[in-house]
């Protein structure tokens, strides 16, 4: 899923200075699962903003709303019904959701309430970690199901580099060395021979380097 992290209230406060009436829009997708932008977080953030603005003697009206998904037109209807009575929308969906709202509601400023951080997993309750960089060219079959692009700090294709120590990365003793993980996994699978092969240069054109990406399924179009 897409992982996000709530922006500091102070930063959001600075964004909403010009407004007295805003919609605070959550999303029931990924950001709900990672506890950054769901219904619950909408309530918590709204309270915090109310209190902060009251303390400034400049109260704010906040319409709380949680959309099924902010990245699909069909789920934006509840927002469409209410938006005209408000000056701006503070979205705590991922960056895709924020931008989709900006495209669909052209007269309203759409403000981001979270930082979208990565595509990852829930490693344990309250801990999320990165797994995929959506490079557009998956090579997990060659690396034991562990991605060197996302998990090696240098995205090395032929790691590990000389900074791998006791299973950890040179950048931080808390960060696993992605290539040590790959090595251990291939060893367990009896596939260490895969590491003998020089991995060829990567085609980064499927990554963001090739420009904004688009996927079209003609058979699904209406």
């Amino acid at each position, binding site marked *: 899923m897409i992982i996000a992290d709530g922006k500091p209230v102070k930063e959001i406060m600075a964004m909403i200075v010009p407004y007295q009436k805003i919609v605070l829009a959550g999303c029931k997708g990924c950001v709900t699962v990672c506890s950054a932008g769901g219904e619950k977080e909408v309530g918590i953030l709204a309270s915090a903003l109310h209190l902060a603005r009251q303390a400034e003697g400049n109260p704010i009206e906040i319409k709380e709303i949680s959309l099924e998904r902010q990245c699909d037109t069909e789920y934006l209807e509840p927002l469409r019904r209410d938006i005209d009575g408000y000056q701006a929308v503070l979205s705590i969906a991922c960056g895709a959701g924020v931008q989709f709202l900006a495209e669909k509601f052209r007269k309203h400023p759409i403000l981001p309430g979270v930082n979208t951080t990565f595509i990852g997993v829930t490693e344990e309750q309250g801990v999320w970690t990165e797994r995929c960089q959506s490079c557009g060219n998956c090579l997990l079959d060659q690396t034991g199901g562990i991605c060197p692009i996302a998990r090696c*700090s*240098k*995205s*090395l*294709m*032929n*790691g*590990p*580099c*000389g*900074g*791998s*120590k*006791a*299973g950890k990365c*040179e*950048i*931080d003793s808390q960060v696993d*060395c992605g290539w*040590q993980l790959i*090595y*251990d996994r291939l060893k367990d699978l009896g596939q*260490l021979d895969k*590491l*003998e092969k*020089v*991995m*060829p*240069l*990567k085609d*980064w054109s499927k990554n963001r380097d090739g420009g904004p990406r688009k996927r079209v399924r003609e058979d699904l179009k209406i």
Partner: protein
Amino acid sequence: MKAGSNLEKILTGGRFAVTGELGPPKGADVAIIERKVKLLKGNVDAINVTDNQTAIVRMSSIAVSALLKQMGLEPTMQMVCRDRNRIAMQSDIFGAYALGIRNILCLSGDHQKFGNHPTAKNVFDLDSIQLIQTVKKMRDEHKVLSGDEIEGVPQMFIGAAANPFADPFEFRVIRLAKKAAAGVDFIQTQCIYDMDKFERFMQMVRERGLHEKIFILAGVTPLKSVGMARYMKEKVAGMEVPDEIINRMKAAGKEKAKEEGLKICVEQIQRLKTIPGVHGIHLMAIEWEEVVHEIIERAGLLPRPTV
């Protein structure tokens, strides 16, 4: 001869090579380079010029390498994958060759987190092994990566690094084999303090016959103090310093620490000379170039051969 550099001639001639290292200034001051050059000249066969090592901004390795060439020394231009994509790197390789540079060392590069610009974006379009392949393709196939023909071939002697002390240990020799397969000509290792572990590494290198395919220069760095030894052990990624060395530096006391450091370094070189498959040493006396002459002399490696 692939490049005809001094270093290549010495190694292919079966001589025990000595290379040094020079860290460019954190600015445009050529006098700093001149001062270091005076200390290194005549003592080493080629000088590595680091490429923004530890991700701290310095004068570019290509520029300093060209200056060394003008000053009559042979540079080995280091090139890291952190800061440039395949377009910039190939372009710089052309430029380096045009400026007279004949040795290149292909490295991944320290992560920018360590340096003075930790908020920078990194590149890593290629990794060090792919950079070796790139230089080899340019040199031997006369083509850039896209397959386009080259107008004037950069005949480079291709080097890379190996760290026998990083983990996983068993993989280190496999990675070296990959560098050999990619087309590397010579290897310089990380600073060695744990000689026994290095011997085990070299045993594995010989079992694979790698020492017959590539030249291996063993890295050494003289210790200045027990504090430096401890720092190397604890803080520098991929470095191992055995307690025996730390104890020797400690026992020497503050007064004699530097002398003990030199003594250890000379002893290491003597031992390295006896290890089959070691073709030379790479002396990294970083910001302590004053001792290079003495170490090389005491190790019995002077005068350097003219080839």
